[in-house]
C-alpha cells in the first residue's frame, strides 16, 4: 500500500532512483576493485564529482519541495545549506586537534592568529559527532522556524518572500565574512584531517561519503514523496493554487508553510553537511545570493513540481557547469544566464515537461510505417518506466 503510494505511481521517480541505486552499487566497485588502466575504472575525480552532484540533488529536492509544491520561492536556501556545512565543518575542525599549523591543542589556527584565549562557547560540543549532526539539523531548522514564523505570520508571500530570504542569506554572508564571528572569516573552514576516524582524503572515505550521499538522497526522496502524496501534500498544493480558499476551508496556512519550510531547510542542511567533507572546505561564499538562486534554476530546468525533476535538473545543470567551465569559464555565465531566460520563457515545466510533451506527441500522432519499429521500442521503454 505504502509502496504503491510512494513508488509505483511515480514512474519517473522510479527510473531516477533506480539509476542512483545502481550507480551506488556499481561505482564503489568500479573505483575500488577495478584496476586504473581498465576501461571500466571510475576515477577518484569522478567519484568526488558525482558525490558533489548527489548533494546538489538533495539540495534541489529541498528547493523543489517548497517552491514546486507550496509555491514559496526561497532565495535563501543556500543559507541553510551553508549552515549545515558549517556545522559539519566545525566538527571536522575540532577533529584536527593539535595537528594545525600552530599546534594548539584546542584552538583553530585562525583563532590562534586572532590571539583568542579559549574556544568560544558556540564551538563547544562540536567535537562530538552526534552533537554536530544534531546541530546540522537544529541550527538551520531553528533559523527557518523563526524566520518563517515571522514571514508567514505577516503573510509575506511571492516576490517579497523571495527578496527577504535573499536579504537573509546576504546578511549571513556579510556576517560570516567577519573574522570576529569566529568561523574563520574569509577563508572559512578547511584543512580537515579525518571524519569518524577515517582519513578524509583516503579513497575508501570518499567512496563511503559518496554512498552515504546517495542513500541520504534516496531516503529524502521517499520522505518527500510521502509528504506530497499525503493529505498534507494536497493541502500544500491547494495553498499554492488558492491560498485564500484554503484558509477559508479551515486550514491554518501559516502552519503548513512553516512546517514545510523547516523540513525543507533541514534537507538543505543535510546536503550541506554531506557536501563539506567531500569538497574539503566551507567558506562564506556559500552564502552568496547567486548560489541560492542557482539552485532554483536547477529545479526550474529539471521540472518544478515533480520531485525527480529536481534531481534531473541538479545533475544536468551541474554537469553542464563542469563541462563548460573547463571549456571556457567566460562562456558559462552566458549559458547560465541564458538558461534562466530560456527555461522561464520556453520550458515552464523543465526537462521533465519537455520529455512528457515529446512522449505525448509520439503517442498521439500515429507513427509512419518506417519509424514504427523505432517508436515502438521508444514507447516500450517509456512503458517500462
Amino acid at each position, binding site marked *: 500500500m505504502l509502496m504503491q503510494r510512494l513508488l509505483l505511481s511515480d514512474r519517473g521517480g522510479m527510473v531516477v532512483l533506480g539509476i542512483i541505486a545502481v550507480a551506488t552499487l556499481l561505482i564503489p566497485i568500479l573505483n575500488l576493485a577495478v584496476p586504473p588502466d581498465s576501461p571500466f575504472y571510475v576515477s577518484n575525480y569522478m567519484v568526488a564529482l558525482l558525490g558533489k552532484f548527489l548533494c546538489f540533488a538533495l539540495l534541489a529536492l529541498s528547493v523543489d519541495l517548497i517552491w514546486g509544491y507550496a509555491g514559496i520561492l526561497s532565495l535563501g536556501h543556500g543559507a541553510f545549506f551553508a549552515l549545515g556545512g558549517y556545522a559539519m565543518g566545525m566538527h571536522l575542525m575540532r577533529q584536527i586537534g593539535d595537528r594545525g599549523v600552530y599546534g594548539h591543542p584546542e584552538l583553530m589556527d585562525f583563532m590562534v592568529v586572532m590571539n583568542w584565549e579559549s574556544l568560544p562557547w558556540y564551538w563547544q560540543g562540536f567535537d562530538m559527532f552526534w552533537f554536530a549532526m544534531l546541530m546540522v539539523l537544529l541550527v538551520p531548522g531553528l533559523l527557518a522556524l523563526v524566520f518563517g514564523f515571522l514571514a508567514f505570520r505577516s503573510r509575506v508571500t511571492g516576490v517579497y518572500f523571495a*527578496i527577504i530570504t535573499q536579504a537573509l542569506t546576504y*546578511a549571513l554572508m556579510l556576517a560570516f565574512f567577519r573574522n570576529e564571528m569566529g568561523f574563520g572569516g574569509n577563508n572559512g573552514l578547511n584543512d580537515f584531517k579525518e571524519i569518524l576516524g577515517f582519513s578524509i582524503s583516503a579513497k575508501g572515505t570518499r567512496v563511503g561519503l559518496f554512498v552515504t550521499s546517495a542513500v541520504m538522497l534516496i531516503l529524502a526522496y521517499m520522505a518527500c514523496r510521502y509528504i506530497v502524496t499525503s493529505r498534507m501534500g494536497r493541502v500544500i498544493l491547494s495553498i499554492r493554487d488558492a491560498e485564500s480558499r484554503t484558509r477559508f476551508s479551515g486550514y491554518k496556512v501559516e502552519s503548513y508553510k512553516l512546517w514545510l519550510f523547516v523540513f525543507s531547510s533541514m534537507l538543505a542542511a543535510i546536503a550541506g553537511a554531506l557536501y563539506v567533507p567531500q569538497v574539503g572546505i566551507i567558506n562564506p561564499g556559500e552564502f552568496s545570493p547567486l548560489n541560492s538562486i542557482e539552485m532554483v534554476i536547477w529545479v526550474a530546468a529539471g521540472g518544478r513540481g515533480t520531485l525527480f525533476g529536481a534531481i534531473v535538473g541538479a545533475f544536468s545543470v551541474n554537469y553542464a557547469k563542469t563541462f563548460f567551465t573547463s571549456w571556457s569559464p567566460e562562456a558559462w*555565465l552566458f549559458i547560465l*544566464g541564458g538558461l*534562466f531566460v530560456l527555461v*522561464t*520563457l520556453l520550458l515552464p515545466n523543465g526537462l521533465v515537461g519537455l520529455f512528457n510533451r515529446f512522449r505525448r506527441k509520439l503517442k498521439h500522432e500515429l507513427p509512419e510505417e518506417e519509424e514504427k519499429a523505432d517508436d515502438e521500442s521508444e514507447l516500450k521503454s517509456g512503458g517500462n518506466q
Partner: protein
Amino acid sequence: MTDNCHHTLWRSLSRFCLFFVFAITCSATLHAQDEAAVNAEVTEAPTFEELVYQLVQGNLRQMGEAVDALTELDNPRVVDVFDALGSGDLYADRSEPPTIAIRHNNGSTTEFFTGAPLLDETVAELRQVRINNRLRSQLRTLMAQLSINDESVDVRYNAVRRMIRDGVDEDTITLLQDRQRIESAARVNGAIATALALYELRSDQPTRRLEAISILRGSLEREARNTLRQLSENDPDEEVRTAAENALNSIAGKMRFFRFIETVFFGLSLGSVLLLAGIGLAITFGVMGVINMAHGELIMIGAYTTWMVQQLFPDLIQWSLLIAIPAAFVVSGLVGIAIERGVIRFLYGRPLETLLATFGISLILQQAVRTLFTPLNRSVSSPDWISGVLTINPVLSITYTRLYILIFGLLVFAALMLVMKRTSLGLKVRAVSQNRAMARAVGVRSSWVDALTFGLGSGVAGIAGVALSQITNVGPNLGQAYIIDSFMVVVFGGVGNLWGTLVSAMSLGLINNFLEPYAGAMLAKVMVLIMLILFIQKRPKGLFPQKGRAAAD
C-alpha cells in the same frame, strides 16, 4: 661671447616659451608676464625667472634678496616658488641656466616653468635647494602675507587656519591685525579672532587670558582645544583654569552638535545614493509590479556609459558628467526596453518567473561587460568642479561630490515626480498599473506604455550609474552591490509610492550612519537588514501602503 650670445638666445627663447605656455593656461598670467617683461626692458629690474635662477644658484644672502625681490613682483607663481622652497620640494641642477623642477606630493617631478615632465637622466642630476631656518620663517611670513590677502575667501580662511596650526608669533600677529581691519568675510574674521585669542592666551595678565578664553568658547580649532586643555590643567590662576574648563565643555557640546550634523549629512548622502539606486526600481517594481533583478546591471551600464563618454571626449572632462547623464539615460533606457520587449512582456502576471528570467539577464549583462571591458575596474575621472571639500568649520567639512549627489538625487526624484503626476505618460502608467484591462478599454496602448515605463525606470537607473561612478569603483560587480539595497528601499517605502521611496531611502541612510560608529560598517548593514525583516512583520506593505480594494488581494 658665443656663450653669452647663446645665453641671450636661450633666454629669449625661454621667454617665448613661457609666453606661449601661459597664454594657453590663463590670460591673467599672460598679462602679468607681459607686464614683467615690459618692466624688465624699461627699468632693467630682474625678471621673474632671473630671480628664480638667483634663488636656486645664489648663496643664502643672495637667496634672501631674491625672495624679497620676488615678493615685489605681482606674479601668481611666486607663491608656488615659495611653497616649494619652504617645503624642500624645489630642485635644480648645475647646468647653466639651471633646470628648475618641483617634486609633487605624488612623487612625480616636473619642470617648474612649463610643467612638462622630465627625463629620468635630468631628474638624476637634480639637487634639492637648501635653505636655513631664518629664510624658512621669512618665507612662511611672506607666504602668509600673500595668501592672507588673497582674493579668494577660501584661500584666506585656510591661510589663517594654517597660521593657527603653525602657532601664532609676533610677525604673524601684525599681519592678522592688519587684515582684521579690512576683512569682510565672517568666516575669516572668526578664524582671525581665534588666532589672536590664542596669542593672547600666552599673556601674563590673567584678565587678558580670561578675555581670550571667552573668545575661544565657540572655537572648534584643535589648537584652541589643546591650548585650553593645557590651560585648564596648568594655569597658575584658579579663575582661568575654571574658565578654560567651562570653555572646553561648551566646545565639546558644540562639537557634538556638529558631529551630529555631519552624521546626518553622511546619512542623507548615503540615503541619496540609495534613493538614486532605488528610484528606478520604484517605477519598474513599485508602479508596474515587474521585478527586475537586472536593475543593478542597468546602473552599472550607466556608470560604464560615463566612462565611455570620458574616453570618447577626453578634452571635455569638465563637461563629461553633464553629457553622460542624457547618454546614460538613453543607453540604459534602451537596454531596459529591449529587456522588456524581449523577455518580460511574456511573463506579466508571473512575478517569480520574471525574477528568475531577469536574474539570468543580469548574469549575461555582467559577463558581457566583463568580456568587453575586462573584469578590471575602470577609473572614471571627476571634473574639478565636483571635487574638493567645502569646509564649513574645523569640525564640519563636506565633500562637494557628496553634496552634489544629494542635490542630484533630489532633482531626479522631483523630475520623476513631475513626469508621473503631470505628463500624459505618467497618467497612462498609473492607469495601466491600476487596471490594465480598463486602461486598454479607454484606448491606452498598454504594451507601449509598459515598454516606455520600463524604459523610464531603466533610464533612471542609468542616471544613478552616472552619480555612482563618482563615488564607487566602476566594474562588472557594481550592480550586484546595489540590487538588494534597492529592493529594500522600495519594499520599506511601500510599493507603488514614490514619496515612500524617498523617505525610506533617507531613513535607511540615516539609520545606517548612526549605527556605524557603534557597530562597524558591515555589522551595521547586517543590523539594518535584520531590522527591515522585522519591520516587514509589523508593516508588511511598507511605510506608506496602498490602501483600498485593489490592494487587498
